[in-house]
């Protein structure tokens, strides 16, 4: 079932008279940069999920908050949908434009307002890049912990909207754990402060609700993040295994030994070989699986933990364990993992990255399931896995130039996500639902749960003008999706009209 916005199942959108709207915008906001011609709009037709493209009605590039406020008021009055976008690096199509909507690009709000070492926070505008925060904090020995792999380019506003993760989540948490305060504009252009400069704030935890809400509840205008002292040292161990099961058990054993690594990553043989061919990191190309275990903190503790982990890995049956000898080797070990996606890109014309999470104990079963599905669909799958926190990134290899392969890759991806849900996991660990996983939401949640999500949306945006169609599917979409996925002989949503 197609994921592009379909008014038939996703709800009718207001029809907007483009020239009239453009006229109104120019009148109300004479100094706002507005893109409206086909060739200017084209570069904004997709985000990081480039397989899906929609040319937006208009693109606006504000530079002052008053412009955003006026724009939102006007769009609210005129009933024009608004899709917010930061750097556009999201992998789930959360910033995929709408033909009938304005794309609000927040990238020009790129000022770091304050870095406060005593208070251990940084206050930044939403277009500031993730890595730029850590760079600005570095002279004080501090950093911002969440590090999604796109951190060079992705902006903090988008990180908040998607509740972005990274490779250090088990120890340092997701975006939601590293925020103090987010300032937003509501759909009506009102300013709200969620959270505070203190560690908590009175009333409901709207900051938690807002984080990861994918631009559906408001527009991020300012973000105050926590800063942490940089760990004194980080050391990394690389372990090779003859089977994925053994590697999975080793992960449980490390945690069972009371050690929380800063990063704990697993790669399967196909990803190991692809990464080694590309980066020459010194990976064990014959291993069925390898683990990278990074321990960070105070020197004495890290040294002690490295010895402990080394013993645990060998006990768990590792055929080889190597401690990176120096910083250069540590960086090289990580380079292979961090470049696993582009490395896979070199061995296949296209690849499709999934983002399911599972309880770790289910890993061997899920990997076996993926292998079976891979055979069924006739497409190879390379697996990289944030093993510490149960977040898998199966990469489906395909060739978009072969008729039907993209569709097969999508169908295989959907099956993998449903497998994650079946073992008690989730369809998305850190990339978000966006448009990409809109159908799989129907597999993870019941119609009643989805109805409650809509109720939350209604509290903030009753007319559904902010990022319509993302994150939460309509019951109609689920009904249609469900009719293709009949579980146990029962049709879900029996009360709904079928199309």
């Amino acid at each position, binding site marked *: 079932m197609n994921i592009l916005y379909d008014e038939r199942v996703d709800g009718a959108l207001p029809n907007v008279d483009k020239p009239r709207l453009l006229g109104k915008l120019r009148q109300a906001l004479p100094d706002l940069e507005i893109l409206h011609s086909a060739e200017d709009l084209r570069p904004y037709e997709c985000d990081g999920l480039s397989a899906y493209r929609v040319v937006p009605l208009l693109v606006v590039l504000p530079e002052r908050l008053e412009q955003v406020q006026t724009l939102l008021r006007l769009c609210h009055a005129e009933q024009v949908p608004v899709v917010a976008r930061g750097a556009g690096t999201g992998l789930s199509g959360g910033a995929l434009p709408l033909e009938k909507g304005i794309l609000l690009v927040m990238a020009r709000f790129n000022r770091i307002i304050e870095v406060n070492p005593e*208070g251990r926070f940084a206050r930044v505008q939403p277009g500031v890049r993730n890595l730029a925060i850590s760079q600005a904090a570095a002279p004080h020995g501090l950093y911002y912990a969440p590090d999604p792999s796109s951190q060079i380019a992705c902006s903090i506003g988008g990180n908040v909207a*998607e509740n972005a993760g990274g490779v250090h989540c088990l120890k340092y948490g997701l975006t939601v754990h590293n925020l103090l305060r987010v300032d937003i504009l509501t759909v009506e252009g009102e300013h709200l402060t969620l959270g505070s400069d*203190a560690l908590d704030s009175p009333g409901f935890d709207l900051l938690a609700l807002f984080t990861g809400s994918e631009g559906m509840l408001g527009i991020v205008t300012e973000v105050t993040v926590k800063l942490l002292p940089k760990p004194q040292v980080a050391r990394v161990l690389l372990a090779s295994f003859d089977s994925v099961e053994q590697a999975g058990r080793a992960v449980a054993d490390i945690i069972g030994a009371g050690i929380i690594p800063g990063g704990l990553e697993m790669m399967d043989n196909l990803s190991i070989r692809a990464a080694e061919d590309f980066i020459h990191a010194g990976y064990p190309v014959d291993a069925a699986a390898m683990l990278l275990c990074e321990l960070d903190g105070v020197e004495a503790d890290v040294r002690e933990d490295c010895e402990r982990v080394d013993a645990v890995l060998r006990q768990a049956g590792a055929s080889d364990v190597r401690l990176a000898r120096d910083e250069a080797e540590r960086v090289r070990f990580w380079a292979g993992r961090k470049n696993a996606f582009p490395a896979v890109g070199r061995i296949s014309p296209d690849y499709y990255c999934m983002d399911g999470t599972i309880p770790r104990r289910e890993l061997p079963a899920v990997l076996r399931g993926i292998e079976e599905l891979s055979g069924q669909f006739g497409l190879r799958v390379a697996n990289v896995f944030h093993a510490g926190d149960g977040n898998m990134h199966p990469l489906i290899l395909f060739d978009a130039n072969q008729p039907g392969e993209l569709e097969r890759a999508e169908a295989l991806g959907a099956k993998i996500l449903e497998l994650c849900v079946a073992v008690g*996991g989730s369809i998305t660990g*850190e990339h978000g639902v966006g448009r990409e996983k809109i159908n799989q939401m129907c597999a993870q949640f019941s119609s009643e749960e989805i109805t409650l999500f809509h109720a939350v949306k209604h509290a903030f945006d009753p007319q559904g003008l902010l990022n319509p169609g993302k*994150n939460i599917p309509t019951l109609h979409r689920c009904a249609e999706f469900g009719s293709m996925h009949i579980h146990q002989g029962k049709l879900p949503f029996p009360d709904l009209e079928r199309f």
Partner: protein
Amino acid sequence: MSIDHDHSTDLLEQVNHALNNAIALRIQGGNSKALLGRPVQGEVLDTRSHRGIVSYDPTELVLTARAGTPLADIEAALEEKGQMLPFEPPHFGPDATLGGAIASGLSGPRRPWAGSARDHVLGTRLITGHGKLLRFGGEVMKNVAGYDLSRLLAGSFGCLGVLAEVSLKVLPKPRTCVSLKLQMGAAEALCELAEWGQQPLPISAACHDSEHLYLRLEGGEGSVKSACQRLGGERIDSRYWTQLREHRLPFFASEQPLWRLSLPNSSPCLDLPGEQLLDWGGAQRWLLSAAPAEEIRQVVAAAGGHATRYGAHETPFQPLPALLLRYHQNLKKQLDPQGIFNPGRLYAEV
């Protein structure tokens, strides 16, 4: 025979009965958090029959338990496996339940370093204002599907629904723990804490009374040992932190009204009438003061924080700005359209 049971059907039935007959419900576990929030008029919905640990796998770092499970049972199960609830929830009595701990959202001394109750919530089962038992979040560390209702429920004081079950992230206990007492004034202590906060020191609790700074160091042997050498001071019994968390230090034995002040990390000493005890490295301060609520709240708000009154009071929580209050009301109306769940517990208008 085990007393652990799944009584969610009974809870759901009582909620549906309340919905059908427009009866307000006062959700209650051990009633140990009654010292916080406005009084609620309504029929008691007692969660304590719905109890028991549903699943706990130490290597997954996840524990799932029913809301009526005594907090002490959960802590004992974790202790047995060398693990803990990192946010150290205050009990405020022997009958504290998991549901109350999460609904009140309170966190103990480790909070600034390890995160809050909300930070450790992974998933919930919730009885809604539409009379349904629904599941949000899950038992995995990372999960960004749909809105994060589970974390929204932490600290919502039961105003948005009945928490029936909670999944939490748990952590191994640190290998080494040492508590220290250093003689210094409050201003000096705040200065030192601001400085130490920028360094990778294994501090996991910091409190200051009028004369001494109390520190807890937790981590590997090496880091704790070197921090001890560097900081000096006198070793104290680590049970001090439980006394602090449970308000059992002599400071709390007072007839004066008790206030909790939540402040930005680097806030200076606040000039308020009464006695103060600094917790959370200065980010949470306990104040015993008979000063008018408005005066206290004004001073705290000017410093970027908010003040909560413990004990019976008409407005225990810092009043919200009008617009924010409106969104609270919107949310309440959407999730609890008949307004049956703990009406008025947080604010008269919610």
